[in-house]
């Protein structure tokens, strides 16, 4: 099911009509040729109008778009031989995080990522990508194996945040996140983090301590959601658009702040408008970073990762 955000709604009737024609005829059917051409022109015009200059709040919404490719979609389209591994060996398996081994351009790698759902049923099963402690513990378990076996690790960040619940707190949500962050500093294999959608706070960072951090153009990465920030600082959740501007959570903002290494271009309007183009944009960049890191030894990688995060922060010293 195609889903339209409020500011995308104008596109809906035209795209629906196009799909109807596609379903029963073909788009180059001479009987419809004229209509198809006119609809296409219309769509292009609307696209330009609504996607031309996105606000931070619109980007925040795009970063959570249900039709965006999620971790398992990247795994399916970029990797081969994916074998998923489950469970934290302590309490349960947390489907909000997926992890396993796979092959990327003939090279064996480990993959860890938050997994949101694409429909209501999967969203509930995945808890909307909001992990419990078990998810982070599974991540650590798989990253530990990758480290011992010398496999580069690719992490995909896409979560509203760690789940705030009774069980999560009881079983050590804070401890699980802290341990995963600390553990990532011990790794002697290359780690590449790709923020593909929503980078929500500590729950995102828990698997985000990479040698390189890449970010899709319409992804966001923030210490708190615009809604949460608005509720606390403005005491009014509806001020989220203002909070989104103030927090500067977009890929371009983070690039300017030297928090991320590279912005991955998305198709016009966002990754949900054309998955294949999104994958095609990410693939060569991933490949380049992996090749670069392959030249470094384990101690170098560990030291570089430390230096990278060590530099983060803005302050003055008198």
């Amino acid at each position: 099911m195609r889903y339209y955000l409020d500011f995308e709604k104008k596109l809906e009737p035209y795209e629906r009509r196009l799909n109807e024609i596609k379903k029963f005829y073909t788009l180059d059917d001479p009987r419809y040729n004229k209509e198809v051409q006119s609809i296409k022109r219309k769509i292009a015009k609307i696209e330009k109008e609504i996607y031309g200059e996105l606000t931070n709040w619109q980007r925040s919404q795009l970063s959570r778009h249900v039709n965006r490719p999620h971790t398992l979609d990247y795994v399916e389209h970029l990797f081969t031989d994916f074998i998923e591994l489950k469970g934290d060996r302590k309490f349960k398996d947390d489907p909000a995080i997926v992890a396993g081994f796979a092959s990327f351009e003939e090279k064996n790698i480990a993959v860890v990522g938050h997994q949101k759902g694409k429909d209501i049923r999967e969203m509930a099963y995945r808890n909307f990508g909001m992990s419990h402690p078990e998810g982070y513990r599974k991540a650590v378990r798989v990253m530990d194996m990758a480290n011992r076996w010398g496999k580069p690790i690719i992490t995909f960040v896409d979560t509203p945040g760690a789940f705030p619940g009774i069980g999560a707190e009881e079983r050590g949500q804070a401890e699980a996140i802290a341990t995963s962050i600390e553990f990532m500093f011990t790794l002697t294999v290359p780690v590449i983090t790709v923020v593909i959608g929503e980078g929500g706070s500590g729950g995102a960072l828990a698997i985000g301590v990479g040698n390189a951090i890449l970010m899709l153009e319409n992804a966001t990465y923030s210490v708190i959601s615009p809604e949460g920030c608005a509720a606390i600082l403005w005491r009014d959740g509806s001020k989220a658009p203002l909070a989104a501007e103030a927090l500067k959570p977009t890929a371009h903002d983070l690039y300017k702040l030297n928090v991320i290494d590279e912005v991955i271009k998305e198709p016009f309007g966002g990754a949900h408008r054309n998955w294949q183009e999104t994958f095609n944009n990410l693939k060569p960049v991933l490949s380049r970073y992996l090749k670069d890191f392959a030249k470094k030894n384990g101690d170098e990688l560990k030291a570089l990762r430390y230096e990278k995060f060590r530099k983060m922060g803005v302050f003055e010293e008198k």
Partner: protein
Amino acid sequence: MIFFGKKKEKKPHKEIDIKKEIKKAEKEESLWIKCSSCQELLYIKEVERNQHICLKCEYHFPISVENRIKLTFDEGSFNELFGSIGPVDFLKFKDTKSYKARLEETQEQVKRPDAVVCGHGKINGIDVLTAIFDFSFMGGSLGSVVGEKITRTLEAGAEKRLPVIIFCASGGARMQEGIMSLMQMSKVSGAIYRLKSTKMPYISVLTDPTLGGVTASMGMLGDIIIAEPKAMIGFAGPRVIKETIKEELPQGFQRAEYLLEHGMIDMIVSRKELKRQLSTLLKLILS
């Protein structure tokens, strides 16, 4: 207690209007304080004499950094480090007020550049490095200055081979520093790993309240984790949890005693015992 028997003679007496009393007390420069754990109304002077501990339930009220230093370190042994680092409003963050104005106001009020004081001191003769959060500075929130000073303290511990103790008291992230606030969690955690690699111990002391990104980094990474009685400790705040799950929270949820029961911390130590306990621990580890 209910007595059955002779009914007491009804004396004409004035009912005490607590609210009015509190208001009056506030006017008289607040003589009373309400315990945030057992809700008891306590005489401030008495609480102060008791090292800011509730006389009824042992809840430990937040204390000032100066007080913490006095309680923990040998007299005259504390030397502040990295005191010249100050915050910058690099995002030009503005909510109902600009971050810059908020900072200036708070600095004026608290007489400190930011929310942490780091230093070197002795605990019964044992050298340690420490970081002490100041909750009264924007809720002890974790921003670039707090992250940088704590990282330097941890790095100094690794370099000089000294144990590090962090006294946490924080509502979590400094939202006004956006992503940089979040990144301090990773920076500090990396430095904790470095310290641990040199075989020096890292001890975290969690005081009321320790929440969010501070718990999910330096709070929970202590080799040894100590909490003060009744301290609120967690990742998500209780209000957020309640709103998410739409359920009442269990009795004592996210209090130190609850965490001890669930295996999340090593011990709960009263302020009156903390110095002795720390020095014994350090002696056991270091010699």
